[in-house]
Structure formats: C-alpha cells, structure tokens
C-alpha cells in the first residue's frame, strides 16, 4: 500500500503545482492585491441578489455607459430569470430611454429610434478609434465579459485553496478594488500625463479618471451611497453580465451532485456485492470466470 500512497502523493502534488502555474503566471506587475469582498453569489448556494443587480445597473446606466459598451447584453436580459428581475414592461421602458441606430429604411438611410426590448445595448462610441479619439488615447474595454476577463495573482497558497473555497470572484473583487483604488502616487512615481494612479491597476497608471464618488448615484432602497458600496454593486452587476446563467448553474449543479453521489454510492455497494465472492472465496476451487 505504501507504493500506492506515494503515487497518490505524487499526483496530488502534480495537480497542485501545475495548476498553480496557470494563476501565478499572470499579473506579476507589482500591483496591490484586492481584498476579497462578501458576495451573495459566492459558494455552492450563492445566487445573485436582484436588488444589488438593479443598483449596479443604475450605476452602469448613469456612469459607466458614458464610455463603456455592453455589446453582448440585450434589454430583454434585464428581465431574465437569475438577473436583476426587472419585469418585461420595465425592461421595455428602459430600452425606450436609449436611442438605437436602425436601418437602412426605404430611402436607404440609417435612422435613430427609441430602443426596443429585443435590442442590444447601444455602444457609446461608433468604433474603437472614435473612443480613443474622444478619450485621449484610452480605450474603455467592453464590459460584457469584463468580470471574467480579470484576475490577480493570489500566490501559490491562494491557488491551492481556491478549489476548496470555490473562489471564482477574482474579477468582481478586482473591479471593486479598482473603483476604490485611486490614491496619490507614492513618492518618486512618475505618473504619465493624462493618467491617474490606482494601486490595484497593473503598472499603477490608469487612463480612466476616478469614475465614482460618495453620493453620486441616488439609491431608493436605503442602501448607503458610498464609493465602497457602489464598487460592490457595479461589480456584482458586471459579474451577472459576464455570467448570466450562474443561478441556473448552481441550482442544477446541486441536483447533479446529489444524483452523482447517491448513484456512485449505489455503484460502490453493487461493486462490493459483486466482488464479495472473489475477495472471500467460499470454495476457491470454484472457477469464477463464468459470469
């Protein structure tokens, strides 16, 4: 059995090391590590908080959408299950507040019309070049998959622990940190022109001006209107935008896990029963090959 144990150890180590690889390789720029936040959607049973998603959407709509597109989301998604739980009428009303380009019409002209629920979120700029030209060279990334497209280096220990704690919220933690990470640059830091110092941004110099400040977005549900809270709400909204089926995934996952554990347990006892006469031969002379 010792030999078996060594193989097991070897594989555990193998898995550990090679996995570690994938994470620790990135984000080696000396940026501060975000502080993990409490998220309603973390863990095996964690789901989105629709109220929080609505607040986050309000921030996106009033602030982020000035520069950041959200191309892969449609207004109908706002009424999807597992989302911000707007009603269809509300989603249609929100869509109608946006102007979208349609056409060509019978005269061959493109034209503007109020958005419909089936439309996708219109982008603030016609193209990347227009965005760069308007924003001094910076290109605000599209936010549709942003919360899954960001990670930070937790080091080797974090990498090993993550699978057990099911930590999948690096992106939202990073977004929350960036929003709260604007400080004065450390002494001697040469900040390039038209950039801002952010201690969580790789390299420190970010082109996005501080986007939010306390009290900027009005909440109607009594939630504190602080930068910290804004950061959490908009990060949660962007996580939903990136992973809209998270609620469905975890709910189905629980059912699948229960099924697999029960089914595998039954297979184990079947296996034990089938092999019983091999391990405890009543009459070793009896051949066992005939099934």
């Amino acid at each position, binding site marked *: 059995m010792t030999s078996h144990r060594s193989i097991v150890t070897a594989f555990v180590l193998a898995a550990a090391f*090679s996995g570690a690889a994938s*994470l620790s390789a990135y984000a080696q720029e000396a940026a501060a590590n975000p502080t993990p936040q409490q998220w309603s959607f973390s863990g095996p049973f964690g789901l989105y908080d629709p109220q929080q998603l609505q607040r986050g959407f309000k921030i996106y709509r009033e602030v982020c959408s000035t520069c950041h597109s959200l191309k892969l989301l449609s207004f109908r998604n706002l009424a999807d299950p597992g989302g911000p739980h707007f009603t269809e009428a509300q989603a249609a009303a929100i869509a109608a507040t946006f102007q979208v380009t349609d056409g060509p019409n019978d005269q061959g002209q493109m034209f503007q019309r109020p958005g419909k629920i089936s439309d996708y979120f219109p982008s603030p700029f016609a193209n990347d070049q227009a965005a760069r030209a308007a924003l001094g060279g910076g290109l605000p990334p599209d936010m549709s998959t942003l919360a899954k497209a960001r990670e930070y280096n937790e080091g080797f220990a974090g990498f090993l622990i993550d699978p057990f704690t099911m930590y999948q919220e690096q992106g939202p933690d990073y977004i929350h940190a960036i929003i709260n990470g604007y400080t004065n640059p450390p002494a001697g830091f040469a900040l390039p022109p038209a950039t801002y110092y952010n201690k969580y941004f790789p390299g420190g110099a970010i082109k996005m001006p501080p986007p939010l400040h306390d009290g900027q977005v009005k909440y109607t549900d009594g939630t504190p209107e602080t930068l910290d809270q804004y950061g959490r709400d908009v990060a949660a909204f962007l996580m939903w935008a990136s992973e809209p089926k998270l609620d469905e995934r975890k709910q189905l*996952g629980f059912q*699948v896990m229960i099924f697999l554990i029960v089914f595998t347990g039954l297979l184990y006892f079947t296996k034990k029963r089938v*092999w019983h006469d091999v391990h405890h031969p009543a009459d070793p002379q009896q051949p066992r090959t005939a099934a």
Partner: protein
Amino acid sequence: MSGHPTYQPQSPFMKWMERRLPIASLVYSSFIAYPTPRNLNYWWTFGGILTFMLAVQMVTGIVLAMHYTPNVNLAFNSVEGIMRDVNYGWLLRYVHATGASFFFVAVYIHIARGMYYGSYKEPREVLWILGVILFLLMVATGFMGYVLPWGQMSFWAATVITNLFSAIPAVGHGIVTWLWGGFAVGNPTLNRFYSLHYLLPFVIAGVVVLHIWALHMVGQNNPTGVEPKDEKDTVAFTPYATVKDAFFVGVFCIVFAYFIFYIPNYLGHSDNYIPANPSQTPTHIVPEWYYLPFYAILRAIPSKLLGVTALAASIIVLAFMPWLDTSAVRSANYRPLYRQFLLIFFAAVIGLGYLGSQEPVGGYVLAARLLTAYYFAFFFIILPLLGLVERTKPLPKSISEAVLTKGLPAGASGPPPKGAKV
C-alpha cells in the same frame, strides 16, 4: 487468453445472425467473458474513464458545433451566444472545456500507471505505442480546440505554437505559412483548426479501437506484472471489471461535476474572455495547464531548433520505452530503485509544469534545465542501466499467490490465510 466460455446463440434469430455477422460473439468475448486479472487496482479504471471522456467530448462537441461560427469576426461572440442564448449552452461549453482538462488528467494518470507497472513491456509494445499516438492526437486536438473561442490566449497560443515549426531549417517558414493559410494567424487558420478539431476525435476513436484490440490480444497487465496463469488468476470482465469501472467513472464524475458547476473557470485563463486582438500581445502567453511541462522543456533550451526538437522528443521518447527499459521485471513494486527514480521523474514533470507557467527568469531557467536534463536522463541513462544493475524483489509465483499473501512483505511466501486452500 483461451479457455474462457464462448458465446452460444440461443434464439433462432441470433443463430441466424451468428452465421452472417458474429457481432454478438465479438461483444461477448470482448466485454463479457474477457478474463481480466483479479488483482487490478483502481488505477486500472482510467482506460474506461478515458473512453467515457472521449464520448462526453464528442457528444458535447457535436452540439456545440451546431451553434459555433468559425470566423474571426464571429467566433468569440458565437461562443458567448452559446453561453447566453442557447438552452443549456453554458452547460455544454463548460462540460466541453472542463472536459478537455479532465481528459488530460485521466490520460496522465493512465500513462503514469503504465510506467509504474511496466505495462509497456513485451508483449505490450504495440499497445503502448498506440497509446503514445493517441496522446499525440489528444495534444493536437486539445490545442486546436483551445484556439476556437478566439480569445486573446487562443490567438496568441496559436501564434506561438505554429511558429515553432519555423525552427525547421530551410523549409520552416514555408511550413508555417502553409499551416496558417496566409502570412499570419487569421481566418484561414481558424477555419482549418475548426475542421481538424472536428476530424481528429474520430481519428482518436479509430486508434482507440486498435488500442483495445491490441489490449485484448495480449491481455491486461496487473500490479504484480506477472501474467495470469490459470483461471484462479482472472475474473470475467462482466460483471467484475464493468461494475468496478462504472463505480470509478462515478467517482471521477463527482470531481468533474464539481469543477463544471462550481469552479468552471478555475482551469481556464481569464485572458480568453477578451476577444482576440492581433495588435496587443498579452503580458504572459501560456498554454493550457496540461501542456506546461512540455512548454518548460521548450523554453529550457536556448536554441530554438534544439528546443523544438527537445519538445518533440520529450513525447516521442515514450514510444521507445519498451526498448529503453532493459529490466525483465515489469512492476515497480518489485523494482525498488526504478520505483524511486520513477517517482522523482513524476515530481520532475510536475516541477516542469510549474516552471512552464512562470516567466523564464533567474533561477527558474536553471531549475527548468536541471529538470529537463533529468527528464531525458531518465529515459536514456537510468532506464537502460537500471535493468542491468538493479536487484529486484522476488516475484510472486502467480497473481492468486500475490493476492492471498496480501499484507505480507512483497514476495514473501507466508502461510495462506485461514480457510484458503491454494
């Protein structure tokens, strides 16, 4: 492997069929009466697990292909469309992406088991070589599949890996242009990778048939490495191996499902959620985790041509194991020195995997070179020499003897357990 019961058709239809297409007796002799050593441990269930994973990848892949668009302008969004708008598309994609990782987990365990118990030795050389071919096909399929979502890491991994061929003298650059179908990784590259990614799994399935055929010619190896001698040493494939494999496929699926439903992006790379951008190179380009040891070997060698040669050699050398290993004893359980060197070899591969993920700077370069040296020394020096100098432990006379004296030191012949008549 003769002497086990043969299929006797009962019904008139099956008798009629048997004289025309004896498929029932093929299934009977291959998957029911087929004798398997009675002492196989759970490491032997990974062959079944791999077959299961191939089926999972094919079924999910075929459905994904119904919704995917292989065009540089549409690929990324079509994958996101699968995640957002296709019914259970998120599930299909996460099963397929996580499934690739678990396919490699299973194949690495399967290969390691073969190395530990000497499953490559006479008369299983062809079986082993077919396995190496299967692994190469898996590597190619996995790589091309990773390119399809057309994220940043897809694009840059495709660029780096295809560029390796430019190391070949004289014709290298021509080959790269030919592979790309242009002068850079672009739409023709994505299209052909998609076509080949769909084709290769069927090639894999074909080679799997040969692999299983060869297995059934020579019979399975077992933890003692001693060939079964009589019926006391074996049990019938069904129900014994079938139920044991099924149980462990279940255990494997629990871990697999945990990753799919709770940490689906843990094994992936966040950069691949950024659409491919040929004008912006990611800070660190890394392959998927399962290629990292080979990537480390590539980078450990300063010359590009030699590095690529070493990369290719590191996999191809496996095919020569049956002849590089000079020992007559199969199982590492009876080869104390080989066992130590092999476990160090496994640790070295893991270490290379870690180094493959790190930037090649400072001490990491030296470490990667040392581990690469050990990797090749294991095959070209240790394996041939060990067979000549190693004092192996005495082998049991038969599998049933090994089973009945379980708990005693390996090779010791103590009294059989109470009640057992041998």
